[in-house]
């Protein structure tokens, strides 16, 4: 155990993560680094990380010993697009929160999935805007009390993992920070695939959301997940109506198709022939 711990340290700059005690983001960091290690990467030389603004967006930046671009709120995917298009050889990974990717940055998320841009997006879904103090997000459950829905949320939340599927992602999965083993396995799978890959991690934010929901400790969160999570297989059997207020977990899609990089470079090679003929 000790040996393993120290071996994921090689991916880090050695600075302390600034997350609150009991925050689910610690588990996401750990799962990601272990996945990378188990895949045999000695360092992050072949990786670039992009993130937006929010607690979740601090995961790689500047803590990973890697190239990391901490962009504006919601704009990690466009920046990742520019990087990947010019450096198709690098693994471009985006980290972000549900506010960052499902709120202000949703347009980019949908289009990147449509284009099948070759990036992995890991979204921590703490069901609120964490960094700004627990306001309602596009992922907040109906009826939930937040700092800006003091009488209960009157909107329906997005189902991010399904949105990704609808928009054209080649891979989409959802786990929770109570499923770190499964999460690690899924990250390993996703890092081995091409195209637009999405992993949603329902995450515990004791400070911003847990406080209001009676899920203050990690254990209370784990209990809540255990009581409410159903597998994607089961969810498909019982139908949409009965899934309400459930957390559907598992792999939603794994369906490779030609990627943006493959398509754009094929066209570029053709155009370059024209260029020479001129």
């Amino acid at each position, binding site marked *: 155990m000790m040996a393993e711990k120290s071996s994921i340290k090689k991916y880090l700059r050695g600075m302390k993560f600034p997350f609150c005690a009991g925050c689910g983001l610690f588990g996401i960091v750990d799962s990601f680094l272990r996945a990378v290690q188990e895949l045999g990467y000695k360092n992050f030389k072949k990786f670039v990380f992009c993130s937006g603004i929010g607690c979740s967006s601090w995961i790689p*930046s*500047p803590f990973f010993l890697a*190239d990391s671009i901490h962009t504006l709120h919601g704009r990690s995917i466009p920046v990742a*697009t520019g990087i990947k*298009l*010019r450096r198709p050889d690098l693994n471009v990974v985006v980290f972000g929160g549900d506010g960052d990717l499902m709120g202000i940055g949703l347009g980019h998320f949908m289009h990147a999935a449509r284009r099948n841009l070759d990036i992995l997006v890991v979204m921590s879904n703490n069901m609120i805007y964490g960094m700004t103090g627990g306001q309602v997000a596009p992922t907040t459950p109906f009826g939930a009390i937040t700092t800006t829905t003091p009488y209960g949320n009157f909107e329906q939340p997005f189902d991010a993992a399904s949105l990704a599927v609808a928009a054209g992602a080649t891979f989409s999965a959802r786990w929770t920070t109570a499923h770190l083993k499964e999460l690690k396995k899924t990250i390993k799978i996703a890092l081995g695939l091409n195209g637009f890959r999405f992993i949603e991690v329902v995450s515990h934010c004791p400070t911003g959301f847990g406080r209001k929901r009676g899920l203050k400790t990690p254990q209370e969160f784990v209990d809540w997940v255990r009581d409410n999570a159903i597998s994607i297989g089961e969810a498909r059997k019982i139908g949409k109506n009965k899934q309400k207020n459930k957390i559907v977990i598992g792999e939603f899609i794994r369906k490779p198709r030609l990627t943006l990089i493959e398509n754009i470079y094929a066209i*570029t090679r053709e*155009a370059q022939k024209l260029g020479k003929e001129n």
Partner: protein
Amino acid sequence: MLSHPGCKTYFWQGNEACVQAAIIAGCRFFAGYPITPANEIAEHMAVNLPRIGGIFIQMEDELASIGAIIGASWTGTKVMTATSGPGFSLMQESIGYAFMTETPIVVVDVQRMGPSTGQATKSGQGDIMQSRWGTHGDYTSIVFSPNSVQEMFELTIRAFNVAEVYRTPVILLAEEIVAHMREQLTVPDSKAININDRKKPRPGETVFFGSDEIPPMPAVGEGFNIAVTGSTHNEEGIRFTADPVVHRKLIERLNQKISDNREKLVDVESYNLEDCQIGIVSFGSTSRAVYEAVERAEKKGVDVGYVRLKTLWPFPEKPVRELSNVVDRIIVPEMNLKQIFYEVERVAKGNAEVVPINKIGGGELITPEEVLDAILKGE
């Protein structure tokens, strides 16, 4: 496409001249979103870039377009986007990001009549102050204003050179009229064109955001473990969001690297500054009416001098102040409701009376007669 750029003359539209210049300057990545009157820039890029192994991509909006060029710039690529007022407004947050992260990007704003959707096909000069102060916080912008197709070409190359050398966003503030007109232009022999590239770090270097006034810029994937952030950061790119000294030091350097080089960045065309009675300060397409008005005034025996601003920002204070020392009156024609006017007044410090000529709407230009009238009024 320019396959062999020896010294040649062409008959191009301004937007096309901009694209050819960008490619000569080394631009290999363009991301944009359709908008009149900048569309031809994207269209020519879409044709030309893939042929030379570059990437063109049309993004879902202007927020994405400027984000994509910022990402591509960090791969070591020269990059550009082009838009007009509404898109330029959407890009402002990222212009601040590029300034803060010292990311070289070229943004072309082909001005039309605003605010809002305004008159989409009509020329204007309403984005002068936006190009200076569009994003939030303390920053300094570099903005060029072409008045011909030839200058669309020359100032596009200059925009790339300056963006790369100073590691900062540069704005080419064009106008519908200059972007859409066709004129003869001369493309010099490729050897005669000066092209500058960003300074690269030596292996093992770790300081990319300080120490030098303009630090070296690594690219991703080169093993430097670069930390890039739009939050306040130290010289190694590490976030420091509370320390007053780190913030002051960073922001002062980012502004000083431009203001310290003001002399090099400022470019004006000036005429007859020694013995003129009346002065004119103009820029962009409006300057073309000034040329004719000055000629006609001279025929009537009135000596007029002018300063034409090819660099709008940093504002060419010295030449404008010198003009104000010589003349009693400075005329400032602009296709807006007074923007550069107040800068001229600020710099003239009461040395000369500053007289505006303003016209907006329908793409109607300020005419040589209107400028001539203003010249003769005080005589």
